[in-house]
C-alpha cells in the first residue's frame, strides 16, 4: 500500500475521531443521555478491547504449527493480565509483555 492510502485512512479516521470526541460534549451540555444509550455506550470499551485482544491472540489453525508457537503469546498474555490486575499501569504491562514475549521467543 502507498502513503496515499495511509493518508486516506488517517484522514477518515481523524474526522470520525473528532466527531466522537467533540460532538457529545457540545450536544449534552447540561443534559443527561437516555438510559438505553448510556448502557450501550458503557459496553463499548469492554467490547472494543476484548475484540482487539482476541484479534491479536486467536487465529484459526493457530495450533497447526505445534502447541508452543500458538501457546507462547497466550502465556505472555496471561503474565500481562496478572501485571495489569496488580498495577493497572499501561507502561508496566507493555514492558512486561514485550520482555516475557521476547524471552519466550528466544527460549
Amino acid at each position, binding site marked *: 500500500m502507498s502513503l496515499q492510502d495511509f493518508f486516506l*485512512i488517517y484522514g477518515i479516521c481523524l474526522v470520525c475521531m473528532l466527531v466522537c470526541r467533540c460532538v457529545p460534549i457540545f450536544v449534552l451540555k447540561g443534559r443527561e443521555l437516555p438510559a438505553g444509550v448510556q448502557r450501550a455506550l458503557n459496553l463499548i470499551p469492554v467490547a472494543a478491547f*476484548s475484540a482487539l485482544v482476541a484479534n491479536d491472540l486467536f487465529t484459526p489453525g493457530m495450533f497447526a504449527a505445534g502447541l508452543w508457537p500458538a501457546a507462547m503469546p497466550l502465556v505472555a498474555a496471561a503474565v500481562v493480565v496478572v501485571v495489569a490486575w496488580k498495577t493497572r499501569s499501561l507502561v508496566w504491562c507493555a514492558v512486561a509483555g514485550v520482555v516475557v514475549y521476547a524471552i519466550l521467543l528466544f527460549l
Partner: protein
Amino acid sequence: MRLMSSFDSVKSALAAAAPVMAGYVAIGLPCGIMESQIGLNALMAFIVSVTFYSGAGQFMIDGMWLAGSPVASIVASVSFVNTRQLLYSAGFAPYFAKTKKWLTFLFSATVTDESFGVNLSKFQQGEWSAAQATFVNLFCMFTWGVANAAGALIGDVVDIPTAIASFAMTSIFICLLVSQRFDRTAVVVVITTMLGVFACKCAGLAGPAILLGAVIGMVCGLLFDRASRRVVHRGAPDAGGEAR
C-alpha cells in the same frame, strides 16, 4: 497575583499529567517504530500523533496495515474502536456547561483513555478547571507526539522485530481491558466478543473481525442486561422478603 495563580494551576496540571506523560514516552517509542515500518518519517509521525492522537488507533492502523488489511476494514475497525470517545465526551459534558466554545473544543479534541481517567477524577474531587484539564491533555499530547517522532527516528536505525513491537500493543489492549469495570454483563461481552472475533476469522472475515466481533459482543451484552433486569424486576418482592 493572577499570574502566580495561573502559573500554579499550570504546575498542578503538569503534576497530574506527569505519570501519563511517562507512560506515553514508553508506549510512543514502539508506536513510532511501527510507524516508521509503514513508511512515516519523524515529522509525519509527530503530526499524526498530535492530531489523531490515539495510541490504540495508531497501533491498530500500523498493525492492520502491516498485516495487509484492506483500507475499508482498517478505517471501519479503527473508527469503531474510537467510538468509546463518545462516552468520555459525554462524561465531561456536565463540567463544561459554562466553558467557552473554543476551550471546550480544544479540550474535547485532545481527550484520551488516560487523560480521561486523570481529569474525570480531578473534576470529581472538585477544584479543577476546564483550563487545567486542557493543559493536562496538551502536555500528554505533546509528549505523545515527541515520543512517536523519536520512535520513528529510532525505527529508521534499529530493526526491532515487528512481532515483539506489536506485542507491546497487545499488552496495552490487555491492560485497558483489565482496567474496565467488571460485572456479569461485562463478562458476557468479553466472552461473546472473543468468540465473535474468532468466528469471523474462521469464516474468512479477518478484515472486519474486530468490528463485527465487538458488535456481536455488545448486542449479546445488551440482551443479557435486559434479560437479567427482567429477572431482577420479577424477583424483586421475593428478594426483599429474604432480606428481611
